[in-house]
């Protein structure tokens, strides 16, 4: 039986994790990436670099290619052209979604996606890195070390009191935090967070901002967000996407006075306040 298990591990249930080489200070490289759907260029010659430990916000009007960009990084969509590297050595275009997740790229979806019939604890256990070998899945218990790891994440996302509640009955904001907690259980180097504060109350937004800021440094965090107030509260660096390319990049205060940015996005409506 154990031979069968190791064979299955070799057959693809488990991918060994290669260490990420970010010695040049850059963790994620997107270079000249292009992808089109039925002739429409969703991403047009996009180049973007995310530094190691950086917290970057990506803004842009609907259809600017923000979600498609995330799909490319996480292996859901393969681009028509371009290079996508994780650190110096790992070519993300050669990997599929689970492999990319295992080398340390976590993705939070726009809509909170937690497993509702499972408890908070079980959701975090599900996401735990290292538990994804077949052998690791055939257990009904947590080791002390795993329990400590889960407790640390519970504290970080502020859900310690809700450990054994079902994820389905959590408040909207709590679900978002739980999903971020699940990403953390994967011990990622890079977190991709799609609209974390949509539908949150101001208090929840504030906590989320603190959480994301506390993650930067030890992780690189890329946040796609529409809410300008929130972007102002967290980001050092902001990238503006427009029609699949980078329109501008810099500090939010600089971008807010950039006439081109104002024209395509900031000035367009009440999203800016």
């Amino acid at each position, binding site marked *: 039986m154990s031979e069968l298990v190791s064979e*299955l591990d070799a*057959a*693809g*249930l488990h991918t060994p994790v290669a260490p990420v080489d970010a010695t040049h200070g850059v963790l994620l490289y997107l270079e000249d990436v292009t992808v089109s759907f039925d002739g429409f260029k969703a991403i047009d010659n996009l180049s973007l670099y995310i530094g190691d430990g950086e917290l970057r916000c990506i803004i842009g009007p609907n259809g600017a290619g923000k979600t498609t960009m995330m799909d490319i990084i*996480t292996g859901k969509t393969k681009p028509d052209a371009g290079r996508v590297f994780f650190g110096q050595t790992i070519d993300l275009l050669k990997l599929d*979604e*689970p*492999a990319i*997740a*295992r080398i340390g790229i*976590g*993705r939070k*979806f726009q809509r909170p*996606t*937690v*497993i*509702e*019939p*499972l408890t908070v604890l*079980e959701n975090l*256990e*599900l*996401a735990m*890195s290292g*538990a*994804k070998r*077949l052998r*690791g*899945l*055939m*257990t*009904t218990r947590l080791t002390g070390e795993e329990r400590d790891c889960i407790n640390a994440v519970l504290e970080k996302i502020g859900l310690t009191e809700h450990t054994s509640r079902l994820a389905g009955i959590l408040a909207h904001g709590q679900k978002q935090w739980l999903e971020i907690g*699940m990403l953390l259980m*994967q011990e990622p180097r890079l977190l991709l967070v799609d609209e974390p504060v949509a539908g949150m109350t101001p208090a929840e937004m504030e906590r989320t901002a603190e959480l994301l800021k506390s993650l930067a440094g030890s992780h690189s965090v890329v946040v796609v967000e529409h809410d300008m107030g929130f972007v102002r509260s967290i980001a050092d660096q902001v990238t503006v996407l427009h029609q699949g390319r980078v329109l501008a990049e810099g500090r939010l205060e600089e971008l807010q006075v950039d006439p081109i940015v104002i024209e395509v996005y900031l000035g367009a409506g009440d999203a800016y306040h």
Partner: protein
Amino acid sequence: MPLPRWLLSDRVGLALLAVLAIIGIGVPILNLLVPPEHPLHLSAYTVTLLGKYLCYALLAVSIDLVWGYMGILTLGHAAFFALGGYCFGMYLMRQIGTRGVYGDPVLPDFMVFLNWKELPWFWHGFDQFWFAALMVLIVPGLLAFVFGWFAFRSRVSGVYLSIITQALTYALMLAFFRNEMGFGGNNGLTDFKDALGFSLQEDGTRVVLFILSALALAGGYLLCRWLAATRMGRVLVAIRDSEDRARFLGYRVEWVKTLVFTLSAMLAGIAGALYVPQVGIINPGEFAPLNSIEAVIWVAVGGRGTLVGAVIGAVLVNYAKTWLTGALPEVWLFALGGLFVAVTVLLPYGLTGLLRRREKTA
């Protein structure tokens, strides 16, 4: 030995196991030790009927594992049940030996009738019990593995997958109807005499088959319950509720699906293998798409994703079928369809859902 926690906390499951233990001991006593004229005596017919229900219940449990936990609505699981049944039926055919109508020591009657001179290659080995028992697991398992490998890797899911599973069982039915396939065609395999030297007509053998069915159901239940309690069980639920989330957490969803689908097919195969000696025949009708759909209805009636519900649903619906096809045969299919509609609309969590609601309000 103390019970593991995953079993201790499963009160309904323990109740099911207790019931299986009671009938596993009680039914043989009522059949063998209580004299026939006593009102409590159970006839061999009843014992076999109950054994049949237990086999159906194991099939239902195997369906619940893939449908209730992993969200794959399989409409072709009776195919694996039938394949397990054919494998064991082939063993039983080879045991007939010279006692067949044509008295051929090697060839089963239908082959002599077709004027075949030698045993087809795939019939070799089936005179050995251990070989047939192994094939009961391997044949359904291998088919499920290959099928799952292609279907899940191409990310076929939802209603499309259900339709393909229907096509699978339908194709097998058509194939097994053909005489040239070498499985007895239309008539299938029948006229079995004995297994391991024990006559299938004997009450004692029937009782043993009944006990084996109860054990197989208990074992199948425990295996599925354990699996659901492990981390793997949580991965299954994650795949059911949000396949993308599971994939972006780093799980190879197609592999998990293929493995669990294969395991489930093997359980269905065991159920079929125990079913055939009790009913005394296996024919291509067992592959009929309707059989698979019926089995899914058992699970829906009992309540999916509970395992115990699958057992309850299988036994109740089949009891109703036995009774209705006797009393009002033309009504049965309408009753079955009506039942499915009623359960879907009124009891989305099935009968066990009703139980749980009662528990919550109490």
